[in-house]
């Protein structure tokens, strides 16, 4: 065996790609878990086709999972790939453009047989044609190796083939200097009841690792130092799971039951799935017949005194619009979570976009103000779901929380919060000792008090018809309507007093500010780092509260000559900023169904700064 050397890196990006049936999502997830639990910061992004299971081997059936990991400054799943696992010809063809020149390709030669080459429209095998010369190609005979390894287990060829992803994972573990123990433990839990599959998977995992160690084609290991993370308990979490947990935590701290009314839609479905597995926490849910029933059942549960929420994605939000107006009118607490995806119409179901912002802020009939919040990272989904609940309950109002497909599915290492350290969640319950006036408001918050069926003596009627101030009687009085419209607006505007000021970071002396919202956070952080290293002076800030805006936003905007707003839409936040603050902002827009790369933002910002300098 030749000597192996170790090379040190700050961060690395690995992309696992293969056919939809190749288990690449699992390999990616297991790798991310191993990296994170060995003390690295990891951000991941699954990238899968909207066809559930496209025909095997085809270009449109490719599924990929990208992991970026390092010791610091890991805010995105990575712009460029260092190591590409491509299990077949189609996955190589569709993913090669993401690989750095000089990067490593790991393939299974079996995935380049005649049929695969035909389906991927390669004239000639790329493994032999010389077209991969600029890369480090490791064409392994994975299929043959695992067949040998598992020959005496008497398994069917089909089951043997299912372990290819674990074998390759073993190779990657060696390559990146990780040990296999966390994955071995996971397999033991997963296949506890299927001893044959367990033995097979453990064997191939080990075999892959040993192969890496012995194989002369792999002369180096790529090593990353452990991250210097704050002390605490961590886990990898996706935005969707974090959102579900945020709601459970808010209900717990508010001492309320949690209710979810929802209809499945990508990429929000998982939240419903997580919630449905929390029955032992007393969480109730209804998989409704449609989105309208989803939100309506949540309104019913809220009326009954639960912390209620509904989850959906763009097309579903469109259906919920009328009922969300009912929640505004009845001033009931409700959290509406919109995991945005590419639109319009069915659009790009599995791809992220930020194009429901204006619909969320303004997309209801009538003057129908509703707070809108946006989460910035997968782990932040927890805090913003919690925050949305806090605001909904304190101000007796529906609240929209915007996440997106990218936050929903990607993971980050998340510091598990201590329930007792989270902000207090206040519930505005009516006092049974006093006569009840349904629309009498608290002086500070302007919220009405919540009287829940079953509270004796507080019987009352509410509904979608305009109500008289204080008494809540049906009223068509013109002056009363004006008053109620004004009050509902003032109530929502007043929430600005109860949210953090916008924090500007980076080079605050610079005359250029990058202002993001939602999931662009990670790319902006990384872009800032790139610019900083080049000596380009810029400040950055991330909006998490969009309606109302933080109180200091107007002043912040005034402080900068150039405010650059990157968004995955055609300029929706930019439109709001211009309308409200009469401030000209510079748009950087990308609507491709893929998140910004840090480099894209960095080079746009640099170009903008330079153009201006030339003009002076």
């Amino acid at each position, binding site marked *: 065996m030749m000597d192996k050397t170790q090379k040190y890196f700050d961060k690395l990006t690995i992309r696992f790609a293969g056919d939809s049936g190749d288990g690449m999502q699992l390999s990616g997830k297991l790798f991310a*878990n191993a990296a*994170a639990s060995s003390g690295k910061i990891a951000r991941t992004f699954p990238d899968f086709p909207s066809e559930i299971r496209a025909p095997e081997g085809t270009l449109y059936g490719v599924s990929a999972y990208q992991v970026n990991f390092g010791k610091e400054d890991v805010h995105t799943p990575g712009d460029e790939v260092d190591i590409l696992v491509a299990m077949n010809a189609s996955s190589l063809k569709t993913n090669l453009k993401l690989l750095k020149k000089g990067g490593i390709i790991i393939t299974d030669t079996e995935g380049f047989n005649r049929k695969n080459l035909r389906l991927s429209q390669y004239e000639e095998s790329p493994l032999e044609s010389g077209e991969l010369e600029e890369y480090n190609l490791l064409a392994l005979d994975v299929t043959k190796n695992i067949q040998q390894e598992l020959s005496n287990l008497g398994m069917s060829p089909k089951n043997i083939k299912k372990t290819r992803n674990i074998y390759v994972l073993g190779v990657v573990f060696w390559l990146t200097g990780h040990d296999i123990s966390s994955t071995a433990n996971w397999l033991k*839990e997963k296949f506890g009841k299927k001893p044959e599959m367990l033995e097979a998977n453990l064997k191939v995992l080990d075999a892959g690792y040993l192969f890496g160690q012995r194989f002369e084609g792999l002369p180096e290991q790529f090593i990353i130092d452990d991250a210097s*993370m704050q*002390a605490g*308990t*961590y*886990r990898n*979490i996706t935005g969707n799971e974090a959102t579900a*947990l945020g709601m*459970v935590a808010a*209900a*717990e701290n508010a*001492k*309320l*039951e949690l*209710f979810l*009314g929802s209809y499945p839609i990508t990429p929000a479905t998982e939240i419903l799935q997580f919630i449905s597995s929390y*029955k*032992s*926490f*007393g969480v*109730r849910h*209804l998989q*409704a*017949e*449609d989105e*309208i*029933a989803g939100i*309506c*059942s949540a*309104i*019913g*549960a809220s*009326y*009954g005194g639960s912390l*209620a929420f509904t989850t959906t994605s763009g097309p579903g939000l469109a259906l919920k619009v*009328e009922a969300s107006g*009912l929640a505004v009118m*009845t001033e009931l607490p409700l959290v509406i979570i919109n995991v945005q995806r590419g639109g319009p119409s069915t659009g790009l179901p599995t791809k992220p976009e930020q194009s429901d912002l204006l619909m969320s802020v303004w997309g209801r009939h009538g003057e129908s103000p509703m707070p809108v919040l946006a989460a910035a990272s997968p782990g932040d989904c927890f805090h913003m779901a919690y925050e949305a609940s806090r605001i909904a309950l304190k101000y007796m109002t529906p609240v929209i929380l915007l996440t997106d497909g990218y936050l929903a599915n990607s993971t980050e290492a998340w510091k*598990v919060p*201590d*329930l007792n350290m989270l902000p207090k969640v206040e519930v505005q*319950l009516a006092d*049974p000792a006093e006569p009840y006036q349904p629309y009498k408001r608290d002086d500070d918050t302007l919220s009405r008090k919540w009287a*829940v*069926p*079953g*509270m*004796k*003596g*507080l*019987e*009352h*009627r*509410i*509904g*979608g*018809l305009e109500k008289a101030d204080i008494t809540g009687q*049906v009223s068509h009085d013109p002056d009363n309507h004006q008053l109620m419209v004004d009050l509902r607006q003032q109530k929502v505007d007043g929430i600005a007093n109860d949210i953090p000021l916008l924090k500007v970071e980076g080079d605050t002396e610079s005359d250029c500010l990058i202002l993001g919202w939602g999931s662009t956070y990670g790319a902006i952080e990384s872009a800032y780092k790139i610019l900083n290293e080049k000596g380009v002076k810029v400040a950055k800030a991330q909006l998490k509260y969009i309606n109302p805006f933080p109180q200091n936003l107007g002043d912040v905007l005034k402080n900068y000559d150039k405010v650059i707003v990157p968004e995955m839409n055609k300029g929706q936040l930019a439109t709001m900023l211009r309308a409200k603050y009469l401030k000209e902002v510079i748009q950087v827009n990308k609507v491709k169904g893929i998140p910004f790369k840090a480099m894209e933002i960095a080079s746009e910002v640099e170009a903008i700064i330079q153009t201006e300098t030339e003009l002076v």
Partner: protein
Amino acid sequence: MTNILEEISKSCGCDTTYKPADFKVENDVRWCSGCGSYGILSQVQKILPELGVPKEKFVFISGIGCSGRFSYYVDTYGFHSIHGRPIAIASGLKLARPDLSVWVATGDGDCMSIGGNHMIHACRRNINLNVLMFNNEVYSLTKGQYSPTSQQGQVTKSSPLGVLEEPFVPAGLALGSGATMVGRGFDRDAAGMKNMFKAAHDHQGLSFIELYTNCVIFNDSAFDPFTSRQSRKEHTVNVEHGKPLVFGENDDKGIIMDGFKPKVVSLADGYSVSDFLVHDQHDVALAYIIAQMSYHNPELPRAMGILQSIVKPSYDQLTEAQIAHEQEAKGKPDVQKLLRGKDSWVVE
């Protein structure tokens, strides 16, 4: 974990001696004079004190339409919602609060047209709600367009040449969707309504009660054949569990089964009451046949009363059972542990 529920159990006097007047609101009831809805309201107010439920535990949820006003007119908890959605709202409420007695007041347009999807799914789930559908076979609040229960050929503002569509048979739709209790009655029949409302309340699961409601403005007298004193006995049959299907001016007619077809026969033809079909409210197939009578064959009388009542676990009961089972299996809920998850690690 709930502070609200604690609050409620503290405040509940569990005083259950009420009078109908306790359920009357102070504000005006704003239906047209002569509207059939008054009759329904008055029977509801009469029956509520008899159900043994504290007043504050009743909730009335309504949609939009003249019928939708109902929730404003009962002095208890009420929610006047949006068009077509009261069943969906009530479903969430009942799931969250199985302790409440939840009633839905809805119209034929509200329930069968815009809210049709919610109606059939609530029936299928067998969620423990009492749904009162005010069927006036027209859209009244919007001033006289046809509805999904309007008769073929009916002339309305939006069908000046007559309705082209076949109407729904509401009770048949409810039965076909799996409702466990289905009844049919009409605004003028105080005794029939009281009986059905009580049965609906006692029934664990979804009770769907269709009530012919006269709209004096847009479809006046549409139900006279079934509801007026003069013709009622000839055109309707009151069904009662275990009793034969007898009808007619002199109680001289009955229904027999000819294969799967109900047929009218008369004592004068030599039949005796013991030959008549006997109603069995647990018989699902029979309920469907009885519900359809007279829709496709005008010779047959229209059936009034409880067409079906069968016992099946309700969705809300099953939810509570699942929660109890999970809590038993998994132990005391620990949210902090849930946050930590399975694959967490500690950084010192």
